[in-house]
């Protein structure tokens, strides 16, 4: 557990994907089965046990610490698991002392000779003679120091002979699976006694189900693949057939066993992704080679159904990264009646009309999918590809042929929740451009609002995992653009930690103090490396105040930097002072030429908001 905790701790601070990958791979290499398997399960979200409530953790710490000290500490740290992990009393050697209401054990003899001595003296009756013998001059730095003398907190890890070793991750996971609710507090306390600080922190995060460390299941699987120099796609393919602690997987990765077979009746297939098309790309592309479709502003999913060993139909919905999201959309499951694998877009349809992403978003990340939610946000699958039809793998077929299979499949399915993503007819890039600019008059009709551009797919392209060059292109509609003024800048992370690369920008409004800038968003990409250097230089030379890592950058009507900000959509947001929140904002241009007074106004954004909601 301590080793796994160390990994989590390190991952929590590491911003770089490749470095995270190496940290995880190194852990898999150094950690024996079955611990590493349970770690992989924890990182991929494949562990399941009943989570402990925060109240339980509070009770445990309340029994062991002074409430005032706990309150002050919690205020300072701001995170329950971490506060408890840090404050958890060291197991005292004298057990009669251990459960008193104080976090600190009696002064440890390890902390200096004086400590030992005065423990025998009561404050008021100390002997003056003793003082003299205690305050012997010590030599200056250099020699004779620290021999067998106190070692700070080392006693934290010093365990007596009778203390059991800290639990392994496997101990924790297997115990939690079977442990009754009433036994949990005692067991948890025992583990907390045995673990070090990082171990306690990780344990508490694990049992409360609050392990947010910025690792995707995909990254964890990729790290495992790197252990055996395998293609991560291969792991994705067999993944649904595997179960923790993945002994067969690690055996295969280390060359000690055969590749595990996926017996899952509804497996995930790695998805094919598109490149963003640039103006210059069109010159070399032939319109006749491509089929165009609308690019829907929903969620990319893979809907798979198949019969298990007993002949029962199993249906699953996967995200584009292969996460099983079936539970979030139980209303779609009955529609997946035919064995096959559909690649498509998840949308919310009301009265046959596609709703915007903002509407769909309200169905996401809900713990409980209530009947009301299902009724208010009716889910729909718009199909654009077919990867498997019953037992047949169609991925090797050219897209045009798969499309024909798909049309037949959807017709046979004949379900109101699943329809076909229509193709867009065009004979030249100009006509397609016109369609993209005005989807409603080019076939998208009333759904035009949920169209965020067009997709171009080569007629002869097989279904290839990843983002193969030149096969699929996405051609988004022009984003919304405003001119905003740079207000604050913050340092980036990782490679960018020496650059001011996170920018808060604002637009003008008539506020209490007259004309003033109000922040409307934050962006940290979109600029080139050269532009980053320029902005960074500007920030350093025009800082008016510093608040920790944040710099307040000059933003007066005649002084400041105007940023052209592109974004995909707007939403009302009571959390933002401006009342609006942007979707996907990025810096599209630096307007050195423009004085800040000429930047856009909040009213412009509010008008855009009206346009969006009115449609």
């Amino acid at each position, binding site marked *: 557990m301590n080793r796994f905790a160390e990994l989590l701790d390190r991952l929590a601070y590491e911003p770089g994907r490749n470095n995270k990958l190496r940290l995880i791979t190194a852990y898999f290499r150094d950690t024996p089965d079955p611990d590493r398997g349970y770690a992989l399960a924890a990182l991929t979200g494949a562990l399941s046990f009943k989570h402990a409530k925060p109240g339980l953790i509070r009770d445990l710490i309340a029994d062991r610490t002074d409430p005032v000290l*706990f309150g*002050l500490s919690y205020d300072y740290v701001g995170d329950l698991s971490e506060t408890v992990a840090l404050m958890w009393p060291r197991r005292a050697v004298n057990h009669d002392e251990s459960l008193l209401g104080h976090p600190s054990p009696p002064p440890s003899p390890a902390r200096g000779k004086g400590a030992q001595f005065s423990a025998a003296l009561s404050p008021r009756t100390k002997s003056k003679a003793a*003082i003299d013998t205690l*305050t012997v*001059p010590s030599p*200056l730095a250099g020699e004779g120091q620290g021999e067998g003398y106190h070692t700070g907190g080392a006693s934290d890890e010093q365990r007596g002979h009778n203390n059991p070793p800290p639990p392994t991750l496997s101990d924790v996971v297997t115990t939690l699976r079977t442990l009754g609710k009433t036994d949990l507090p005692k067991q948890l306390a025992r583990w907390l006694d045995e673990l070090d600080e990082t171990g306690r922190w990780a344990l508490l995060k694990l049992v409360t189900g609050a392990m947010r460390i910025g690792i995707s299941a995909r990254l964890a699987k990729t790290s495992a693949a790197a252990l055996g120099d395998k293609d991560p796609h291969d792991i994705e393919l067999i993944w649904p057939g595997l179960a923790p602690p993945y002994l067969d997987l690690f055996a295969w990765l280390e060359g000690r066993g055969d590749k595990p077979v996926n017996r899952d009746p509804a497996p995930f297939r790695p998805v094919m992704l598109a490149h963003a098309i640039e103006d210059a790309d069109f010159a070399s592309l032939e319109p006749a080679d491509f089929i165009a479709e609308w690019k829907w502003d929903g969620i990319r999913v893979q809907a798979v159904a198949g019969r298990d060993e007993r002949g029962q139909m199993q249906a699953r919905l996967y995200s584009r990264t292969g996460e099983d999201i079936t539970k979030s959309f139980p209303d779609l499951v009955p529609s997946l009646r035919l064995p096959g694998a559909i690649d498509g877009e998840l949308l919310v349809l009301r009265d046959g009309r596609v709703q915007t992403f903002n509407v769909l978003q309200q169905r996401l990340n809900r713990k409980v999918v209530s009947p009301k939610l299902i009724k208010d946000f009716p889910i729909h699958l718009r199909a654009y590809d077919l990867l498997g039809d019953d037992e047949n793998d169609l991925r090797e077929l050219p897209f045009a042929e798969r499309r024909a299979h798909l049309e037949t499949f959807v017709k046979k399915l004949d379900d109101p929740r699943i329809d076909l993503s229509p193709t867009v007819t065009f004979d030249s890039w100009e006509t397609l451009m016109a369609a993209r600019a005005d989807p409603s008059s080019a076939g998208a009709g009333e759904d035009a609002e949920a169209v965020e551009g067009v997709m171009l797919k080569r007629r002869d392209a097989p279904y290839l995992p990843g983002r193969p060059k030149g096969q699929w292109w996405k051609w988004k509609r022009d984003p919304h653009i405003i001119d905003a003024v740079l207000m604050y800048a913050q340092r980036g992370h990782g490679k960018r930690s020496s650059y001011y690369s996170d920018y808060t920008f604002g637009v003008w409004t008539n506020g209490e103090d007259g004309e003033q800038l109000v922040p409307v968003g934050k962006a940290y990409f979109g600029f080139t490396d050269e532009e980053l250097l320029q902005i960074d230089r500007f920030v350093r030379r025009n800082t008016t105040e510093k608040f920790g890592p944040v710099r307040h950058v000059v933003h007066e009507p005649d002084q400041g930097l105007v940023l052209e900000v592109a974004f995909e959509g707007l939403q009302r947001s009571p959390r933002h002072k401006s009342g609006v929140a942007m979707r996907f904002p990025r810096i599209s241009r630096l307007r050195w030429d423009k004085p800040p007074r000429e930047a856009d106004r909040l009213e412009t954004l509010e008008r855009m908001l009206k346009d969006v909601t009115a449609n």
Partner: protein
Amino acid sequence: MTAKHRGQSTYMSDMRPHDILLPVAAGLCCKPGGFHIDPVRPVERAVITHGHSDHARPGHGAVLATQETLDMMRLRYGDNFARSTQAIRYGEEIRLGDVTVKFHPAGHVLGSAQIAVSCKDICIVASGDYKDATDPTCAPFDVVPCDVFITEATFGLPVFRHGDAADEVKKLLASVALFPERAHLVGAYSLGKAQRVIALLREQGYDAPIYLHGAMEEITHYYQSRGVALGELRAVKGMKKADLVGTIALAPPEATSDIWTRRFPDPVTAFASGWMRVRARARQRGVELPLVISDHADWDGLTATIAATGAGEVWVTHGQEDALVHWCKSRGLAARPLDLVGYGDEEESEAVAADEADT
């Protein structure tokens, strides 16, 4: 050696602790002794615990401190940092006015001292900043029994429990082994922390050259001149990026997130500080490898030390006074926070120095 043994007359026998030491705007004032301890404003006579810039400031008349502290002040502020100076050794006792003053090792940085001020039969120990953990670069902390103990509270919350610093250094070395093509950049305060980290690395058997930011070269060389073994040290300045592959470099904390870092190959940013115990603090600073290495006592160190001094009264200053005062009271000790301003981590004062370093 206490005032009692000197058999002085008893006309001041009703003297109370705050008649001996009293917090005033300039710092802790000893009226009967005619001096201030670690004054934050220029005073006639200053007694100084250690060389960190929030405790040792220039511009006083006479300064009494250990030789190391005086040397550090000279390095920092130049030869004329005070009108006159007097060095005192650990264990040495000096009479100042109606009080006697005795210095004891504080274990904080090289030359750091606790100052025991005795008057009649009352002994007050102003401990300055201290730590009770092992540090190969300075004399170990001595527990000084006293009636009133003045303690810092930088890490005065029970969440601050610093583990063995050697384990933190092992963490750093494990990272160096895992990322051999990157440089490891360790933020550490120039005075004390940097040298301790180097010494800890050497204790772990790391014998490659360690690289230093320009701002910490002088003070580190001073440590070496006082017999602290630190192995081979090199300046970062003038090195090519390719030459810094796989190296460990130390720099003042602020420099680790500034333009200066661009000379390193894909650096891993570490920070050696007791604050790294709290994740949000580490994340806020963009630290990738937090190393919990502190030159202050942690919670257990503070409470164990207070108990060990046998003091019946505790004055708590700079840091989390509330929690420590509460703890003292719960143990039946008289305790109060001292209203002293101007002390803190070196952090604030180093920010400026680092920015100026070489941008």
